[in-house]
């Protein structure tokens, strides 16, 4: 059945085509604002979250603070022992376990002195987890790779020799040769180790210089599947800390959660700004609907006097608001995709997540909100039309 009231609304919109179109433009702008703001926020969230979760697949195990037993003179080794490492390897299953030695020390390049961290890695681990941007991973014991920050600050090149250690302690300081330079990793190191300021050497060279053979400062477990994070953590905890807490097990998931929630509030905030434009649109729709009602007072009088129900008159005007909303929403939806894509690409520079459901959902959501706002704006005018006194309305010119 084709509804005659819908027909009447369509004809009224056509009759005042220019006015209706202009009112719809308000809705177009509102829909575009909501959709593209929402998509901007969501894309930002997705990108940051993805960068952060790259580091979340790493469990970091460090020695716990241990109180010396009363009366005991033996100092507890401040590190993770070889047997604890074996337990960790057992508990970690097929996940990659990387023992790391680290310390802070002074070093010199020619006559320039500096200070930074020295890390010791197993040569095979280094080959597996580090991608140098220049040179290669160490093959010999006195080969080293350096982080991006330290390399640029000290102007390190492949082949540069670095003297390690305090100059006044040892007359002949040990020397390593730079064979590779790592790219900038920043916060989001994919293996949970920030190497930007580090000189990385083989563990055997490290032990020879700094001692602590078979004792590690940190053990990283790189997970193949992030969802097994808590299961692996529990397994390690049960195995290594079975008698008392000897190691501390941590990960970056709480940091991801807090950053995500911050970004989510930011998205809500920019969405709220976008909504203001819909408020303006609502006002213009309201205005046009009131004009439509006021121009058609006599027609409303005719409709009511010959037996049209109030509800039917209301429906006719709500249809009109709905038509304006649909026109605005469709144009707005199409423009949202174009404008949203441009905004995301201009402001974030990465549109990889644009067409994901979490992001693109803002287009239909914005369209639906636009239509709802239109119908909402038409409620009062429709109510007013349906409650006119037919006698008074007929008399209007």
């Amino acid at each position, binding site marked *: *059945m*084709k509804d*005659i009231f819908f027909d*009447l609304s369509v*004809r*009224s919109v056509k*009759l005042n085509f220019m006015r209706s179109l202009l009112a719809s433009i308000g809705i177009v702008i509102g829909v575009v604002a909501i959709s593209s703001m929402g998509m901007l926020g969501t894309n930002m969230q997705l990108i940051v979250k993805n960068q952060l979760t790259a580091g979340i697949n790493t469990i970091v195990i460090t020695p716990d603070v241990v109180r010396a037993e009363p009366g005991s003179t033996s100092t507890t080794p401040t590190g993770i022992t070889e047997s604890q490492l074996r337990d960790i390897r057992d508990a970690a299953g097929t996940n990659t376990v990387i023992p790391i030695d680290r310390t802070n020390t002074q070093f010199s390049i020619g006559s320039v002195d500096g200070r930074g961290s020295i890390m010791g890695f197993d040569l095979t681990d280094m080959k597996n987890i580090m991608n140098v941007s220049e040179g290669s991973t160490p093959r010999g014991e006195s080969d080293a790779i350096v982080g991006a920050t330290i390399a640029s600050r000290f102007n390190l090149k492949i082949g540069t020799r670095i003297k390690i250690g305090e100059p006044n302690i040892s007359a002949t300081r040990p020397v390593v040769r730079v064979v590779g330079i790592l790219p900038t990793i920043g916060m989001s190191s994919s293996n949970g180790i920030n190497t930007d300021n580090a000189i990385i050497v083989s563990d055997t060279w490290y032990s020879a210089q700094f001692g602590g053979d078979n004792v590690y400062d940190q053990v990283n477990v790189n997970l193949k599947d992030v969802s097994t994070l808590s299961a692996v953590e529990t397994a390690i905890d049960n195995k290594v800390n079975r008698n008392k807490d000897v190691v501390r097990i941590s990960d970056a998931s709480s940091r991801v959660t807090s950053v995500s929630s911050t970004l989510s509030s930011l998205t809500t905030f920019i969405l709220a700004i976008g909504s203001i434009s819909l408020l303006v649109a609502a006002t213009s729709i309201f205005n046009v609907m009131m004009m439509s009602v006021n121009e058609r007072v*006599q*027609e409303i*009088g*005719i*409709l*009511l*006097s*010959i*037996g*049209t*129900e*109030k509800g*039917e008159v209301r429906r006719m005007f709500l249809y009109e608001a709905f038509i304006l909303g649909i026109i605005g929403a469709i144009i707005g939806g199409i423009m949202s995709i174009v404008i949203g894509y441009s905004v995301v690409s201009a402001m974030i520079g990465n549109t990889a997540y644009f067409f994901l459901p979490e992001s693109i959902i803002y287009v239909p959501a914005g369209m639906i909100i636009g239509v709802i706002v239109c119908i909402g704006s038409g409620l009062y005018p429709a109510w007013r039309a349906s409650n006119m006194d*037919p*006698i008074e309305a*007929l008399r209007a010119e």
Partner: protein
Amino acid sequence: MSEVPLIRLADVTKVYNLESGDFVALDHVSLDIMENEFVAIMGPSGSGKSTMMNQLGILDVPTSGELFINGKNVAGMTNLERTHMRRDIIGYIFQKFYLIPLLSAYENVEYPLILKYKQRDMSGKAAAVLKSVGFDEDLSAHRPSQLSGGQQQRVAIARALVNDPKILLCDEPTGNLDRKTGFQIMDILTGLHKEGKTVILVTHDPKIAEYAHRTIQLEDGKVVAS
């Protein structure tokens, strides 16, 4: 013919509360109109003709007194019941035709059918009624603004008739027409009266009132002759 009047006004008073004070538009009017009467309501302007029409057309309710239409007390009905009664029992014919400007001639006639049956007319009734009032079929798709006064009033009569009402309320139906067209319209109304309709006609033209079989004279809201 039924003994119960189709329309009964019992001591009906209508008072308008104006800023300048209360205005009594109908003053204790009592009146019966039987089925298939042809009544003319006459009187000078301000005598209460329009108020009377609004009462008879259930567009308004009395301030006091009782108004029965088709055996039902108007005051006791809900708004929706009054709306349905206007749709089903009464056909309105106005001086200014009052066609719906956005609808074609045909759709204007079809409209009351849609109101009543909630669907478009498939029976051909709208077209048949339009034809019966002498409307040119070729003009069916025209909007009211494209029609002459006489054609518009024919459409209006067809619209009033299409739901087969008992009462035809005609408010100066010839007032906006030339003499010749006016008489044509009156001939149509006379024919409808012969077919059994109750026709109530408001006019101040005695020539037009002559078509009626009974004349109700109003003055200052009172019936002075009936």
